[in-house]
């Protein structure tokens, strides 16, 4: 480098490093991928939550988002594909003092792990699930998944996806989740507030976060760079708190309904179990 950056200070450490395994940075995610931003929102929410961080455990499955647990300086478990929720279930029951957070992707949580997702919601297991949805399997180079919009092109839907997708909030709400919200990785402040609400919620709380995959999904569907995908979120997101999750479906190129859809109280698995014995 023969030139220097003007008017900036060069640093080696970041204020959030205390919450990160900084010896593993830079992370493996692509330039512009929303995952890093989402992690920032999570750490920020965690700091505000007042939770004892030594009693917070993060569980991930497999995939790009599956690596999240590996960058947070917390007890972290990087499990097998689709199995973060049942692992988290055992962890919570093995030590109910823990705040257990699952951070994983849409393919991991609602395709291969779909059965676990609906059953954990049904029994109101007291865990928080952060589902990062980039509409495809990024880690394996962009195949169609359970949330890929109809018509979208991926490496395994070269003629356009002919299957209808799941809406994660609708699935979560129908299965019995106590807190259901959706944001995009552009809505950083609202996302942070929402994660904070989810962390403080007793029961099965779900925050879905729409996030750009510039390398595969964005490119295959001519959505441009991460920046352009963020602009798309900016122009097409509609905040509708309390709206019916049944109307939260996402069409290719259509609007993205965001907001907090469900926020209710009911007994958790452990509450009901204690009462029944």
């Amino acid at each position, binding site marked *: 480098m023969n030139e220097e950056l*003007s008017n900036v200070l060069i640093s080696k450490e970041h204020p959030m490093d205390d919450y990160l395994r900084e010896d593993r940075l830079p992370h493996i995610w692509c330039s512009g991928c929303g995952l890093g931003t989402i*992690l920032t929102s999570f750490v920020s929410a965690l700091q505000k939550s007042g939770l004892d961080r030594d009693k917070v455990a993060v569980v991930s499955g497999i995939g790009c988002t599956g690596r999240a647990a590996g960058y947070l300086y917390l007890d972290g478990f990087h499990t097998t594909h689709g199995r973060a929720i049942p692992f988290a279930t055992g962890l919570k029951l093995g030590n109910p003092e823990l705040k257990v957070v699952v951070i994983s992707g849409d393919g991991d949580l609602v395709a291969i792990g779909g059965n676990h997702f609906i059953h954990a919601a049904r029994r109101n297991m007291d865990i928080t699930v952060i589902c990062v949805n980039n509409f495809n399997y990024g880690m394996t180079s962009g195949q169609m998944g359970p949330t890929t919009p109809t018509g979208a092109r991926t490496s395994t839907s070269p003629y356009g996806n002919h299957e209808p997708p799941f809406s994660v909030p609708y699935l979560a709400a129908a299965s019995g989740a106590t807190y259901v919200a959706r944001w995009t990785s552009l809505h950083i402040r609202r996302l942070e507030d929402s994660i904070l609400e989810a962390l403080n919620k007793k029961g099965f709380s779900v925050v879905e976060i729409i996030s750009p995959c510039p390398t595969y999904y964005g490119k295959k569907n001519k959505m441009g760079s991460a*920046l352009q995908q963020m602009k798309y979120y900016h122009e097409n997101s509609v905040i509708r708190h309390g709206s019916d999750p049944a109307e939260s479906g996402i069409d290719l190129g259509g609007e993205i309904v965001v907001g907090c859809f469900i926020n209710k109280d009911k007994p958790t698995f452990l509450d009901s179990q204690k009462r029944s014995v």
Partner: protein
Amino acid sequence: MKLWRKPLDQDRVMIPHGEVHIIIERCKGCELCVTYCPCDVLEMSRIFNAKGYSLPQVDGSKDCVICGLCEMICPEFAIYIEEVSHG
């Protein structure tokens, strides 16, 4: 800074000033910070890091007001702001 209306107390409020810190090795040149800085403080430089990503820098004519948006939106934990001490 772009303002919709001029605050009545604008001349009495001290606007904080921030210094931009960059961790060169972590930046991946996604430009989110530059795009979303509400004060247009940042711009892309012509300088690359070791992995070939071009890095942001500060346009000296603008002032950072420490809104923290670049820090929040950066996916790389590569940028943060510290307040310039007035002491």
